[in-house]
């Protein structure tokens, strides 16, 4: 990350000037529009879903309260390919329209899916669960007394929603949207596929098209400014959350909906889940099972093997480092340790493209150094030892996803009361023994969660892999992207479906936590 920021100070190549003259404005405007659109989209979808499931009672509410999380399993680039396949000119929807109305090409208007608007829709559909999750928790932690106070002061339930419940959930809404927007900025697959010139695509193009690593880094630095603004927003809103004490809540009293309104709610929830998960998943499945034998063929199994190996390596590294950092902070809660944890936890906010560029520059420099040293002393050229290797890739994953692991490890450690450490120490155990005999057994759940989350995130990660992968090395995500870019949507379905299915794991994990929370409330 330092490398990226440092590049701002470095020399500006002519290409930078060229970029500023031509496409930079495009990148900024498109990225801003994208953020605005996704912000509005996730707000509307997430908040209404949260309000319905947390505050109203309608048929299927329990089912939907976790089903609404399903779209999280769907990476944005995959839903983008899928909808393109379904909605473009040759797709089933338009074909059906033409057949039933006897239209020909150009006779009718149909929204173009591969556009900025399309990208906004796709991203909103899969990113709203961030808002939903946080706002739902906020709603259900709001004291019923406060809502009843509003009723007893003469406000109807709907007025109460807008005057009290929503303003009180503001910090959660802001936090959720800032998360969704970070993901939006980090997204490469969707915008690249839809041909939208946003920052991430710009970085890619500068590099591969113009071969300007330095300029790409400068673009990345620019993107980072946006990200830090969002990061700050998220942190600030979470600080404000402290002023909203979750008070003793009586058993939640939901608004009973009946008849048409209840049906409307059920339909709305169903529509959101269908659009974000069920429809694209079915479409993927139908493409994939056109030719099920392919699943067992060597190329696909290779992909699976590569992906799993990478993900497992990165997950283990992350876990080890997270444990080291988290435990170090517990033992020595000093300033330095806190800063180290804070800095390393920012990685998740940084888009994969930026990290990839940031990792590549020092590695390339190291390679060149080693290479020239080796040539001087040994007379052999080592070539690129590190930058094209799996090591660089895993390193980049660790930078990006360490915070995910750190979060579960820290929250797990946080639940272990310090008195336990102290009693173990007073019984004659060294810190390492305490870790092994007390903490690790108690942390098993958190550690597994951390491992799983990183594993799945790595599996889904597209841009980092795309930039840093060794030559001729492919993963599920990369392959799906390549095939889709070549318009071989049906062929892309198999790896895409595999990613979605694996992506379901953390969602299931989360819904289990969520329903446990419901039972406690």
């Amino acid at each position: 990350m330092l490398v990226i920021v440092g590049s701002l100070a470095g020399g500006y190549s002519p290409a930078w000037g060229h970029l500023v003259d031509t496409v930079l404005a495009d990148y900024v405007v498109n990225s801003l529009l994208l953020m605005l659109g996704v912000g509005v989209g996730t707000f509307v979808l997430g908040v209404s879903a949260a309000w319905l499931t947390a505050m109203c009672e309608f048929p299927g509410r329990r089912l939907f309260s976790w089903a609404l999380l399903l779209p999280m399993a769907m990476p944005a680039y995959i839903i983008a390919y899928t909808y393109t396949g379904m909605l473009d000119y040759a797709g089933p929807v338009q074909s059906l329209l033409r057949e039933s109305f006897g239209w020909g090409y150009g006779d009718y208007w149909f929204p173009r899916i591969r556009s900025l608007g399309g990208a906004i829709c796709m991203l909103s559909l899969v990113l709203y669960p961030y808002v939903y999750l946080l706002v739902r928790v906020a709603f259900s932690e709001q004291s019923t007394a406060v809502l009843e106070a509003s009723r007893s002061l003469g406000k109807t339930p709907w007025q109460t929603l807008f005057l009290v419940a929503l303003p009180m959930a503001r910090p959660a809404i802001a936090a959720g949207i800032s998360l969704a927007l970070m993901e939006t900025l980090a997204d490469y697959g969707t915008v690249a596929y839809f041909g939208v010139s946003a920052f991430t695509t710009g970085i890619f193009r500068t590099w591969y098209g113009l071969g300007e690593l330095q300029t790409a880094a400068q673009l990345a630095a620019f993107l980072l400014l946006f990200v830090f603004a969002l990061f700050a927003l998220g942190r600030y809103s979470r600080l404000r959350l402290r002023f909203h004490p979750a008070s003793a809540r009586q058993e939640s009293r939901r608004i009973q909906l009946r008849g048409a309104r209840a049906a409307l709610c059920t339909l709305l929830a169903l529509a959101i889940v269908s659009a974000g998960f069920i429809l694209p998943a079915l479409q993927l499945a139908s493409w994939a099972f056109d030719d099920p034998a392919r699943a067992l063929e060597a190329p696909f199994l290779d992909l699976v093997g590569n992906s799993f190996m990478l993900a497992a390596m990165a997950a283990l590294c992350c876990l080890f480092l997270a444990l080291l950092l988290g435990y170090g902070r517990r033992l020595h809660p000093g300033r330095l340790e806190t800063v180290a944890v804070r800095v390393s936890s920012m990685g998740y906010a940084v888009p994969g493209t930026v990290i990839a560029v940031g990792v590549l520059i020092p590695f390339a420099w190291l390679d060149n150094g080693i290479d020239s040293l080796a040539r001087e002393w040994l007379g052999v050229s080592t070539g690129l030892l590190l930058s094209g290797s799996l090591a660089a890739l895993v390193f980049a994953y660790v930078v990006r996803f360490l915070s995910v692991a750190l979060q579960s490890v820290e929250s797990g450690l946080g639940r272990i009361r310090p008195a336990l450490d102290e009693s173990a120490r007073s019984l004659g155990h060294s810190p390492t023994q305490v870790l092994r005999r007390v903490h690790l057994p108690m942390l098993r759940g958190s550690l597994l969660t951390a491992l799983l989350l990183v594993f799945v995130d790595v599996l889904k990660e597209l841009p980092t892999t795309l930039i840093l992968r060794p030559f001729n090395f492919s993963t599920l995500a990369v392959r799906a992207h390549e095939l889709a870019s070549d318009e071989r949507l049906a062929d892309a379905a198999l790896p895409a479906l595999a990613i979605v299915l694996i992506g379901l794991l953390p969602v299931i994990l989360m819904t289990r936590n969520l329903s446990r929370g419901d039972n406690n409330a």
Partner: protein
Amino acid sequence: MNSQLEVHKVTVRYGAFTAVEDVSLTLEKGQIGCLLGPSGCGKTTLLRAIAGFERVAEGSIALHGSVLSTPRQQVAAEQRKVGMVFQDFALFPHLNVRRNIAFGLSHLDRRARRARVEEMLALVSLTDYAQAYPHELSGGQQQRVALARALAPNPEILLLDEPFSSLDSELREQLAGEVRELLKQNGVTAILVTHDQHEAFAMADRVSLLHRGRIAQSDTPYNLYHNPANEFVAEFIGHGSMVSATVDAGGELSQGLGSLDRSHGHWEPGEHLRLLVRPDDVEYEENSRTRLRVVGKAFRGASYFYDLLLPDGQRVPCLTPSHIDVPLGGELPIRFNLQHVVVFAPPRERTAD
């Protein structure tokens, strides 16, 4: 129907569970009532039924002559002119004090609203804190904001749900007195829900003691203490022990409890009685022949609270000046002074509760 509040034979059910059963209650304008009882007795449920947050299964609730709740029809909470102060105050965390108080005043125009808010701020002496947010206030201040907010729209009745329970115990009684003053001066009709009898006595004109969803006794604080209607009331209010005894032909009680004031009337020789013995009914007397074994003892500063053993194993309380210091297991000379003692016929002989 001149009563401000008329609760008529109200029953509230949660599914199969009956939380409030056949409760009737009236309050005149300006009166302060109290629903007192142990937790789970249904007092909060009844309050919430009056506020419109629970439906009544039977009976009716009327406020100022207009019917609010019947099993068939339920006026929505926001349409009743009912003010409510919640247990944890339930202030809106995103609004400052001024806007919290103004929340229920949207029917007024801007100027009238401003005037009313100023008036309420002055009433609870929080004018200096008008811009503060709830989390910046102390517990007592938050409580005054909650009170001002509930009173601002001029409700027909003010409901207070354990309003002092989240405050320090020292603050409680003082605040209860202050709040009573404030309500009385403004002629506010109010109902307080609490499990703390001292709070109830400090605030209310009439106290209804609830037991398992039914009213055990509805009376003035004085009568609740001195003339409890049944054993539950006797045990809940104040300190005391229920003691079983029999009366002999001479009017003497068994266990050496002495003789009973005959004006109580409803006893005959040989009858089994249940007596409520308050600590002040058992007096220390240096030369008394009656000496009871000390089985429990607590230092109260000015006094000692003794737990004494009767010959048959029952216990009675006794309050002595704190210089009377008998060790555990020792014997305390006492005299029974049962002139005002409350007597109940044993439960099995009572016809109906």
